[in-house]
């Protein structure tokens, strides 16, 4: 049994504060002066910075040796239904929280909305609050609430501050995800009632209690898992359900794209880990082949389609589809390496794709186009931009020494241990990624610069400052991921152990073929048995 909300619960409720700080900021922004956008921006930046500071404090205060949830806090909400504000984080959610805390101030600093600043900043802050809620809540209903509420600010961000066909994109985004999560609510409620029936206890939506009890019959649990999985699959998105993503990414404002790619897509993958694997280990194991196939298809499909894109932003969007395929692959490998790799990849993807979108946004700001064909030779006019773009791109490709490599490598190792051929197929995706990104880089930055391209200004100081932390992370995580993996490992191990305990005849697939690959820079993976 994982100790419920074990250690390091400080007297200060840091997790609720994490959720409430941005919301408070949002309130301040709403009450702020309409005609002073710079002041509103200041408030927004301060609020996100404060949140970011909290997450940094969390990182430092987090006890890496503990495999349970930390910083727990609980407040009753609807007692009648056994719903409470239950927060806690473990190694799985810690870095996603941190990622959120870092990306938001960057996204807000990087761009200005242009109009209706007040609403813009308010929505951004609400969005952050919602995301934080998703990553930290341990009550099924609260999780669902946050999972859903995220849609609203994102909808408005795309719809009001997006480009081109934004109405279509925003509506599609909203409906896809809403429809996807429709069944999850049913699943959550059914799960709680079945759990209460089976245990004879009072109605509760406490994730830990339900997951640890594993009181649901196998068959039922599979149905419930599907209900959850649909929501997550749409959110990730997994291959056939991905069509909202390119539209949303392309039409969203830069900050929106950054957040969407960097954080929102992780809601789905995180959900698979926390609410799929943890709640329904047997069902997850049962359906893993399906998701593995879909993950591989996503990798290859995303890469192939990305290759054919004429729109730079769309290209990056499709690259996300491919990257997320890796995460899915790792998650459903159901071993420590895979899951860790997936987790790491979540963080990495957030950093590198976020940075890519920022860069694309910067190019757009200068040239007002996303069309690759209209760009060219930017390297000459904006060498620093090109350099930064190169680094980020290489991270995205998965060049060893940069962060992307670590995650992808771990995923491949995990998958290889579990299902060799999937890993081989996915490996092809890595090659394709190199292809489309490099090709795009070539077309955009090389060649002769004509017209406006020749006079395009280079990075400004502010933009550089915004990008610096991301670049730093790309490099640091690529060279020295140990502290991260160290903190993830206990939780992931516990999760895998949980799966082993509750799935008959399941053993963590590690180095089955006798190929013992020690992940580079990784912690020891000796706990295989």
């Amino acid at each position: 049994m994982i100790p419920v909300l074990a250690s390091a619960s400080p007297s200060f409720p840091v997790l609720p504060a994490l959720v409430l700080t941005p919301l408070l900021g949002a309130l301040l922004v709403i009450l702020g002066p309409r005609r002073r956008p710079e002041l509103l921006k200041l408030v927004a930046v301060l609020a996100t910075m404060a949140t970011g500071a909290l997450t940094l404090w969390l990182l430092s205060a987090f006890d890496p040796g503990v495999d349970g949830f930390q910083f727990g806090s609980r407040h009753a909400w609807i007692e009648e239904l056994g719903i409470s504000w239950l927060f806690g984080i473990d190694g799985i959610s810690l870095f996603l929280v941190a990622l959120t805390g870092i990306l938001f101030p960057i996204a807000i600093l990087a761009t200005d909305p242009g109009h209706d600043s007040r609403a813009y900043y308010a929505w951004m802050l609400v969005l952050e609050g919602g995301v934080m809620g998703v990553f930290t809540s341990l009550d099924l209903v609260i999780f669902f609430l946050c999972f859903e509420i995220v849609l609203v600010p994102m909808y408005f961000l795309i719809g009001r501050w997006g480009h081109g066909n934004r109405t279509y994109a925003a509506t599609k985004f909203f409906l896809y995800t809403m429809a996807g999560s429709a069944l999850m609510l049913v699943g959550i409620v059914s799960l709680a009632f079945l759990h209460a029936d089976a245990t004879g206890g009072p109605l509760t939506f406490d994730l830990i209690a339900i997951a640890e009890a594993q009181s649901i019959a196998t068959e039922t649990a599979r149905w419930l898992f599907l209900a959850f999985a649909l929501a997550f699959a749409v959110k990730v998105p997994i291959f056939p359900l991905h069509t909202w993503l390119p539209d949303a990414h392309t039409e969203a404002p830069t900050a929106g794209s950054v957040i969407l790619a960097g954080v929102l897509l992780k809601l789905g993958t995180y959900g698979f880990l926390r609410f799929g694997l943890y709640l329904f280990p047997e069902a997850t194991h049962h359906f893993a082949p399906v998701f593995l196939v879909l993950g591989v298809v996503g990798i290859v499909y995303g890469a192939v389609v990305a290759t054919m894109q004429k729109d730079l932003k769309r290209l990056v969007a499709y690259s996300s589809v491919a990257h997320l395929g890796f995460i899915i692959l790792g998650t459903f490998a159901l071993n420590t390496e895979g899951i860790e790799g997936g987790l790491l990849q979540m963080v990495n993807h957030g950093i590198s794709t976020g940075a890519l979108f920022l860069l694309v946004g910067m190019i757009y700001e200068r040239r007002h186009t996303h069309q690759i064909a209209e760009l060219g030779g930017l390297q000459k006019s904006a060498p620093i931009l090109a350099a930064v773009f190169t680094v980020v791109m290489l991270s995205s490709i998965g060049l060893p020494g940069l962060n992307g490599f670590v995650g992808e490598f771990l995923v491949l190792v995990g998958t290889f241990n579990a299902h060799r051929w999937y890993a081989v197929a996915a490996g092809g995706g890595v090659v394709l990624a190199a292809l489309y990104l490099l090709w795009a880089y070539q077309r955009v930055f090389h060649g002769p610069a004509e017209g406006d391209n020749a006079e395009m200004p280079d990075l400004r100081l502010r933009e550089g400052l915004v990008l610096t932390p991301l670049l730093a992370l790309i490099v640091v995580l690529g060279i020295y991921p140990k502290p991260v993996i160290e903190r993830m490992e206990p939780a992931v191990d516990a999760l895998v152990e949980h799966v082993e305990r509750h799935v008959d005849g399941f053993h963590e697939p590690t180095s089955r073929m006798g190929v013992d690959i020690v992940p580079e820079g990784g912690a020891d993976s000796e706990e295989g048995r």
Partner: protein
Amino acid sequence: MFAQAGTVATPEVLWWALVPLLVLAGAAVLLLTVASLVRRLPEWLPAAWTIVAGLAVLVSVVPLWNEVQDDGARSFLAGAVGIDGSTLFVTALLAVAVVATALLSRAYLTREDLPGVEIYVLLLLSAAGGVVMASANDLIVLFLGLELLSIAAYVMAALHLRRIQSQEAALKYFVLGAFASAFLLYGIALVYGSTGSTGLARIAGYLSTTILLEDGMLLAGFGLLLVGLGFKVAAVPFHAWAPDVYQGAPTPVVAWMAAGVKAAGFAALLRVFVLTFGSWSGEWQPAVWGLAILTVLGGSIVAVVQTDVKRMLAYSSIAHAGFLLVGVQAASDRGTAAVLAYLGAYTLLACGSFAVVTVVGGTGDDRHGLDAYRGLGARRPWLAGAFAVLLLGQAGVPFTAGFVAKFGVIAAAAEGRSYALAGVAMVAAAVAAFVYLRILVAMYIEDGGPEDDTDATPWGPRIVITASVALVLFLGVVPGPLVDLARDAVPVLVGG
């Protein structure tokens, strides 16, 4: 000769329990009398009077609630009337709807230059009918309450005497309403025939203690009652009147229909089916199940193709009826509580939404196309913002009362193992979300739209909108009070 007449024993009356009804009916009659005697009644008086009456009912409900919570439900007047938590809960909802409708009506009548005393009289009497339905302990009393509610509503629908649409709406409402009443009555007759009584408590007692060898008549009665009440709450396939009526009727009246009439209708459904026929739930649950599925899907899907906002909201109210039916179908205490909580949330949402529609409708009450909402976010940010909150609430977005409501009925369905129903309902909710998004898109994303001829929102609608938005948000974040009240309001049948 005279001596014989004196031997009649009159039944006991709990006057205190009748206070809400007496306040409503008394206020109506008094208003009517005063209005027919005083020349040049101050224009604000009827509305103010109605609002005061509504508030008085709200206030009076509080001690009654405590009384009922302490001493349990009662029944009196020879078992014709009962008082329990649900009675008072629904009464309070009706009172809220009355106040809101009166606030809207005042602004509306002034704008449309219509004479206005009768609308308030009818509103109060209609509400009295609703209160009767919520407290009926006898099918005949229930029916009379329903007719009181409906007939007043028919007239109110026709009250924009300068618009032929208004009268047509009333005609459609009336014809189908009368049709439904006939079904309801036939159902009552058959239930009477198979149980020997029209008293709910007697029927319930009979059904739970007697094994019926021949239940054909009873089942036919169930079916007809369901059809009759289904018409009243606009369940698919008995919904045909709702869109037309919502579109044509004066908007404040639509608010009443959506909030008040629906609440009373579901109070009746709960009393009759869940409470009285509870021991036979296996027989009627499948029918309600089917009705619920048809209603959530039908309402949501057809709403998508509408271009008139009032029609959209009409179909969405049909979809909401479907959700309420999901709660009814559960045939459990949790289901009942969920329905009541849903009604509470929907009352707020409907009042607020139609308040916005009233304002946007403009002079002549005919600007209800999506075009009228284009660019509203830029023109009138606060109005649009409020509408956005209300629409999101109707969509069931978290941290609005709408979510709490939907969550409750879904939970009830899940508890009753009606997973398919719950799933379909949630999918339908996602479809319905598209409808609300279309309005949001029009308000925020599209530009243009007509120039406003009115400068500011009148204070009546403003109060309604502000209060409903505040409550919708508050109950979304702190749903405890609503959920607890609804739990305590689960009705009890007391024999009489």
